[in-house]
């Protein structure tokens, strides 16, 4: 794996050389790239080797130099449930969905039920826009095979690995449940909620968040058999009794608010091992913002700052990492 922030001409050179790539950048930059074996999505925030930065001119390129074969694919929202059908027998799939699109909603709500989803690594992210353009800009994805750009649906890059090689997909989540915080559950799945049950008591959730001075920079955290999975607050509208999230809350799952991890970059450096230069990774735009990553690094782990992260399912405020190694050494998939 090779990760680098590079100019559009440099990225075009890698594409023309036949490299298999995943690319993040501004819409203008992505549109300027030639067709080839790549997929892309809009984000202008990056955690580069020299620190976090906003950059509309350059693109962040991850090269899958171990790929033995690849195919790009666009799937409409209605076909998303087929996303595992065209993958290679031995490999991995990368995916990018446009933020706030119907595909984003569909995948977040139903992806875990797609046939065979957990049989091979599915890693990716949600595209976004410059934060000044929230509400007006439209996140996009691009199928580099055709050069077509989309506001809905998903682009996938299926990759075949060499014999004896497997991909490890995992997450780095610095947030853990605050065990002293109340237990929160919801009656319905969704990206928004009017009511919640707080320690079993039904409440107007927006009102409860406001009255209790909840720090909405700290996500709700669910315990998935020991894996901490976040749902981040997007907005709290106490007047209309509505809380919006960046990923769906799931009915019946028990959430607690997270403890503050402390200074993100420092805690990250102290707790994450491995060589990020040999992995694909992406980190959440909220970690970039709340964790004040602009100008700061996350060690050797570089990649786009994204508007939702995918490690099989949608995640928030999480770094997703994928590496490739010899089969006998693999501990996770």
């Amino acid at each position, binding site marked *: 794996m090779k990760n680098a922030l590079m100019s559009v001409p440099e990225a075009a050179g890698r594409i023309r050389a036949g490299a298999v790539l995943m690319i993040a950048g501004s819409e203008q930059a992505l549109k300027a790239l030639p067709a080839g074996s790549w997929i892309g999505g809009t984000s202008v925030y990056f955690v580069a080797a020299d620190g976090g930065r906003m950059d509309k001119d350059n693109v962040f390129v991850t090269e899958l130099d171990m790929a033995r074969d690849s195919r790009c694919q666009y799937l409409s929202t209605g076909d998303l449930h087929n996303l595992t059908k065209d993958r290679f027998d031995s490999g991995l799939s990368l995916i990018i969905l446009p933020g706030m699109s119907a595909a984003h909603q569909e995948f977040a709500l139903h992806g875990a039920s797609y046939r065979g989803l*957990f049989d091979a690594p599915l890693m990716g992210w949600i595209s976004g826009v410059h934060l000044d353009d929230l509400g007006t800009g439209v996140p996009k994805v691009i199928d580099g095979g055709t050069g077509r750009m989309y506001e809905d649906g998903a682009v996938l890059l299926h990759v075949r690995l060499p014999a004896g090689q497997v991909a490890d997909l995992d997450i780095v989540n610095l947030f853990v449940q605050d065990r002293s915080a109340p237990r929160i559950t919801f009656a319905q799945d969704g990206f928004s909620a009017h009511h919640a049950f707080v320690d079993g008591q039904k409440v107007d959730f927006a009102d409860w968040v406001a009255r209790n001075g909840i720090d909405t920079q700290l996500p709700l955290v669910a315990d998935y*058999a020991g894996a901490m999975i976040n749902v981040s607050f997007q907005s709290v509208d106490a007047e209309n009794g509505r809380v919006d999230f960046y990923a769906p809350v799931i009915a019946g799952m028990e959430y607690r608010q997270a403890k503050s991890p402390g200074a993100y970059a420092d805690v990250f450096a102290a707790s994450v091992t491995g060589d990020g230069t040999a992995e694909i990774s992406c980190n959440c735009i909220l970690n970039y913002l709340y964790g004040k990553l602009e100008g700061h690094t996350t060690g050797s782990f570089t990649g786009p700052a994204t508007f939702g992260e995918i490690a099989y399912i949608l995640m928030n405020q999480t770094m997703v990492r994928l590496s490739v190694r010899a089969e006998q050494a693999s501990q996770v998939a």
Partner: protein
Amino acid sequence: MTTPSDDVLTRTILGDKELKGASLATRILVTHLRREASVDPACLQDKVTELRAFFAKNPFAVNDLRTL
């Protein structure tokens, strides 16, 4: 390691045991199956079958069996 019995898989789905050291795929899948079985207890046997098929199909998950 052989695939565990239906009893073990059933206990895994009905329980809330932390699968310490298991792969991310196994942890998310088991949690997903637990939730589905909780919402619709009549589908429990289907979820056991689904979990059995996952372990049978995926060599990477074999190491996870010891966490059940």
